[in-house]
């Protein structure tokens, strides 16, 4: 099992669930969780949902991907308060998370993953 888990933070529940489904096809052994939408499943992000998801990982490290800027603010806050090792990836949401998941599944080196992610850095 890779020692890095993937967290998907989106403004919309369906996007989080859908991207998780997309990634699971190529990364069955990678732990992937989604924290998407507000607590009443409205459009937005929830500090609590993100925090709970982060806490629930068994992996020592978590790579977080997010869709829009306000999700990043909540992620930043969680990362300042959690004792987990949360690494926020400022890359294209779906495409970046896909690449990371596929490469983690293949046990690719961290360096090679980062060099694939680099051109996707748009945030």
């Amino acid at each position: 099992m890779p020692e890095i888990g993937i967290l998907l933070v989106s403004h919309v529940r369906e996007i989080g669930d859908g991207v998780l489904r997309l990634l699971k096809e190529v990364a069955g052994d990678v732990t992937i969780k989604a924290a998407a939408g507000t607590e009443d499943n409205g459009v937005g992000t929830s500090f609590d949902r993100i925090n709970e998801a982060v806490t629930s990982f068994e992996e020592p490290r978590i790579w977080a991907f997010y869709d829009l800027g306000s999700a990043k603010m909540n992620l930043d806050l969680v990362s300042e308060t959690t004792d987990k090792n949360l690494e926020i990836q400022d890359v294209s949401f779906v495409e970046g998370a896909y690449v990371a998941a596929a490469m983690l599944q293949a046990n690719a080196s961290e360096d090679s993953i980062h060099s694939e992610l680099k051109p996707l850095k748009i945030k």
Partner: protein
Amino acid sequence: MLMVDKIKKWLELFAAQLHEKKTYLSELDSAIGDGDHGNNMARGADFLLKSLDQSGDTSAVFKNAAMALLSKVGGASGPLYGSALLALSKKAGETDDRSEWIAAGAEAIAHRGKSEAGDKTMLDVWLPVQKALADGTLTHEKIDAFVAETKSLKAKKGRASYLGDRSVGHIDPGAQSSGYLFHAFLEAGADHA
């Protein structure tokens, strides 16, 4: 009145105002954003009232309010107001100087939002309010003027920034809700000992 009671009154008045102006705030956000600021803030206000700390400790009251907004708001304003109130909570443990509190809050917003003066955000109310407070010249009229002045700004942060020039001519919704925060601040007498 004890300081902590003024602070509670402040937050209660703010919450009441957010409820009353819910539709208006969402309308402002419809023009240059996604139209949810009023709903976001009202949801946060509900929970803030429900979970208002009763311990008699100012820092704890701020911290609880911060967590309420953080948890329930859902939009960018959640982590922004949340961070600001966490900063107030911390600062209130160090000093009673209200202008230092507000300065700490403004700094937290700028840090969280990577924003600065003139970006057409809530910060454009927090910063001049802080200054007026330090000068001892803060009034209701000034607060309204600060809010109104966001109209002429071009958005550089948040959803409105995608509109570029088209964001000009509209009041920033977060600036407006921050206006309500500071009106409540004065009304509750929380600006002085």
